[in-house]
């Protein structure tokens, strides 16, 4: 089968891969490149577990074709920590016990980071609506919201 040859940047590194037209960015990240931090919960954009940044926009990797990222920039959960240094959001998620099973956590972190970059001082309601595209079945969201609000305080202070 004829495959598309795609040259792109993922987490700051140059990547080249081959993919079929039907394959999604999520398929490519996981099955092709084995960047498995982005999770598939629904493959229909309803759960947010595959949230990634595409040219600085928060998107669901399951709703982007692999071939579409030619020449573009993708950021995934794998680049969120800076070396050994966790991102403040990652640290706050741990401190607030904002994860139970952890499957939705990468998606929440990527989405929350996008929020705080756009709005460093969100209200609880703004956090809740921004994160409405990320489903969590374990926590009831309480501790996630607190972790994001607390990380925002820290990030504004630094």
């Amino acid at each position, binding site marked *: 089968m004829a495959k598309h040859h795609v040259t792109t940047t993922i987490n700051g590194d140059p990547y080249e891969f081959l993919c079929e037209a039907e394959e*999604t960015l999520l398929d490519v990240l996981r099955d092709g490149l084995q960047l498995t931090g982005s999770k598939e919960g629904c493959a229909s954009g309803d759960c947010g577990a595959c949230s990634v940044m595409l040219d600085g926009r928060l998107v669901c990797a399951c709703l982007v074709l692999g071939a579409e990222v030619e020449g573009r920039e993708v950021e995934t959960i794998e680049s969120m920590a800076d070396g050994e240094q966790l991102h403040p959001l990652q640290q706050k998620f741990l401190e607030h016990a904002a994860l139970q099973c952890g499957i939705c956590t990468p998606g929440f972190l990527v989405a929350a980071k996008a929020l705080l970059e756009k709005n460093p001082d969100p209200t609880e309601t703004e956090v809740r609506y921004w994160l409405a595209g990320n489903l969590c079945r374990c926590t009831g969201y309480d501790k996630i919201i607190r972790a994001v609000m607390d990380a925002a305080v820290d990030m504004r202070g630094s």
Partner: protein
Amino acid sequence: MDEMRYETPESLEDAVALLAAAKGETKILAGGTDLLVQLRAEMIEPELVVDVKRIPGMLDITEEDGGFRIGAATPSAEIDEHAGVKKLWPGVVEAAELIGSVQIQGRASIGGNLCNASPAADSVPAMIVAAAVATVVGPDGSREVPVEDIATGPGETSLAKGEIVASIFLPARPAHSGDAYLRFIPRTEMDIAVVGAGISLTLDDDGTCTDAKVCLGAVAERAILVEDGAKALIGTKVDDDALENLAAAASAAARPIDDKRGTKEFRTHVAGVLARRAAKIALDRAKGN
């Protein structure tokens, strides 16, 4: 079952030529938030997918004659963030902001929302009441089509083979006018509209409504303009009586189906409620101008 082709033309002409030449089913890819779901569910098996995002202008918002021309592949998020559009047609922006999650809005395009032809598409009633016009480009050149004439039924459009919606024009808004869009969903986010209501209205200097458009989503095979709803407002001060008449007209115009998202009677009732609530917001906006 042939292999799906994916193409990224860099001009409208090339895109039209690709679409026109294809033998099997073709699909246009803008944000992909509907298309990729349909592909994954194997609801569609197109021969050709044409990604139009590399075509100049497809992702641009430009000022034109006091209004705005929005490239058809522009994602909702770009529209949400556009101060000019938000000031001119806040109802359209509200509707665009309701399309799915932040993640979805990062991709879902205004043209895709229109051409996917879902009766529940949020941006469509809002654009219809804003008198938006789509620029359609095809093998025979370009034509201007009122937004309400694009969708003809669920998943069906009036576009001919090879035709593409290139942009949508939101015209200048008359003085003393306002618009608003409201929808009902069971949750606060992430659902498809069970009912949607877009309203725009224009007042004269003493606050009497001189013009109005009322459009309902998700209560018929496509978004419907409610003439009687507009009539209920025109010539009034949009007082409580007029709003009740509007609600009654909206409910009367609704011809919904029972499905997993809502019952006929629920949709019929809520169509009136939302029309009334949206009209109040539009009225406040008109008065504020």
